[in-house]
């Protein structure tokens, strides 16, 4: 039995004429300690998929199992790093993290909690900014806080929804390494949503493309057997890496074209915009 299992999961939004099936027939198994990446186009339903696993929303059909039990709501066992950081703007770094620690470790003494918060903030090198408000931090720093908040609760699984998409390339690279370091330390099960194939290959054990919606389903999986720790520059000369990267990108371009030709056939796409600034999809085809 897999650690996380999605069986024939479907999810629709809207009512009546405007009802669209975002995800259709999703089947996914993630083993304990595994690092899985899902790549997909903006608006294809990646956030919806993560929300289903975290328990923020319930599937219309099928079931989501965690350790063999159906997911009925959010739990501290599954930590979430949100796409748009979702830090509380009126709390400083310490309190944003502290709030999570307090909830996850109700029995801990105040002193222990403070220590835990400080340790975790230290881990992502944010100690100098611990008393700052989110608005005083750069995007990369905010995402570090968001990562810290999720990890400080000691979840068994960590669900990351495009955690690095809004960051510049340099910050992105640094944070990739930091997340990998943390993941490596206690081998948590991890699910990473990304729109960057390179990022997926660098970090994950397995990459699964999500086909563009509506009625998005998962594509064929790509196993990544590259040895860890993986070095970005060294990878560029690795034949296996190149082959893998090319075949994934080819596949994505192919399903992307299918989508484009569908459009020409007057296929009606839902006119709903994602809430966040759309993360550039160009990275995917040109990177």
């Amino acid at each position, binding site marked *: 039995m897999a650690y996380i299992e999605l069986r024939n999961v479907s999810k629709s939004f809207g009512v009546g004429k405007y009802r669209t099936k975002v995800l259709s027939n999703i089947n996914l198994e993630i083993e304990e300690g595994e690092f899985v990446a899902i790549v997909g186009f903006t608006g294809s339903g990646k956030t919806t998929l993560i929300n289903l696993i975290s328990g923020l929303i319930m599937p219309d059909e099928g079931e989501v199992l965690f350790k063999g039990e159906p997911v009925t*709501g959010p739990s501290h066992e599954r930590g979430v790093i949100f796409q748009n950081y979702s830090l509380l703007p009126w709390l400083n770094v310490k309190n944003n993290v502290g709030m999570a620690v307090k*909830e*996850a470790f109700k029995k801990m003494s105040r002193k222990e909690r403070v220590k835990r918060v400080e340790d975790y903030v230290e881990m992502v090198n944010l100690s100098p900014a611990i008393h700052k408000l989110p*608005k005083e931090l750069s995007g990369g720093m905010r995402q570090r806080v968001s990562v810290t908040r999720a990890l400080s609760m000691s979840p068994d699984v960590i669900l990351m929804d495009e955690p690095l998409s809004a960051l510049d390339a340099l910050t992105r690279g640094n944070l990739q390494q930091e997340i990998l370091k943390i993941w490596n330390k206690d081998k948590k099960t991890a699910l990473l949503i990304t729109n960057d194939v390179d990022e997926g290959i660098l970090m994950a054990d397995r990459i699964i493309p999500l086909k563009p919606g509506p009625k998005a389903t998962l594509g064929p999986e790509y196993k990544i057997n590259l040895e860890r720790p993986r070095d970005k520059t060294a990878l560029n000369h690795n034949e296996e890496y190149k082959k893998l990267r090319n075949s994934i990108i080819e596949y994505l371009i192919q399903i992307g074209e299918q989508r484009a030709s569908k459009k020409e056939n007057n296929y009606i796409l839902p006119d709903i915009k994602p809430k966040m600034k759309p993360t550039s999809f160009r990275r995917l085809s040109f990177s």
Partner: protein
Amino acid sequence: MKDRSIHVLNFVGLGFFEPAIRLATGEEVKKNLVVLFKKVFLPILSVGLFLVVWHSGARYLYNIEKDARIEKALTDRGEVAANEMRVCIESGDIGCQPNTLPSPAQVWTAYESLLSDHRIISEKKTAFAEKVAATNAQREEQGLVAIKYTGRPSFVDQIFTSLKTVFAGFLLALFIAVPIGIMLGLSETLRSSVNWLIQIFKPVSPVVWLLLVFMIVKTLTRNSDTDSSFIISFISVGLCSMWATLVNTSMGVSSVDKDYINVAKVLQLSVGQKVFKIILPSSFPLIFTGLRITLSVAWMVLIAIELLAQSPGLGSFVWEEFQNGANDSNSKIIVAMFVIGIIGFLLDRIMLTIQKFVTFTEENA
């Protein structure tokens, strides 16, 4: 130091001093001169223009009134009386001055006389307090109430009475509107079921509120002989002004960013914690905007309500001056008008400053 003082000035809304400070320290002289011109010189110019227009307007009205008086004397009592009237008016004798819009100078004089009046009354009060000090000490020993000064209140006393009333009314509005607003914001059912009530009562005029409160309070205080006019006026002020806070609070609470709600869910906060740690802080900006509107509405309706409820304060001051029709009454009314306006402005500034302290700004968060 300089940047700090500029920051403080901007914070309390006195940002127009900024170019002057920058100029004084010799920073970007040309640019700051332009800013100074825009922010300081132009406003002063417009004040001057306002005074000129006011002055000539008052002059014009004065002349109309003056001619009418002379004309009337002429038709009623003949030429001699008309000439006497002209001489009397031009001599500045207060007995025969035309009664119309006062000029800026007259208003200034009235302002000074109100101040000196205040000084005299304060002295009287101190003198009275000294005189009765011994008696009052005795009365206190015997368990009797101290003798209080019951003379006429000065203009400044009236201002403080008004501030007291508005403050009481504001607190009442705060304690009614914020909790109810939170409840309404949390429950869609509640919101839609009492919406009609809010929509109907919100536009009701202050006068009607006053009468309503009057009906109720009068009956309730039937058997006590306390002066109910203060109670009536502050309750009316509170009821008139609370709607902005009520609506804003419920709107703020009901429209909390979905991301924050998701955070609350993922952290598995209890209902109470969700309200106090997520929903309330995130709706603080809207609640405070509501409170600011409430305070300014409270101050605005206060005058009318005091006037009608005959409770002491600036409203009754204005009304008494209007009724008594002394030759400087009109000027005193205008003084009151400016005082009311300036205090209203200051109250708003205070609220704005508090708001900046207690609420967060998202700023590309």
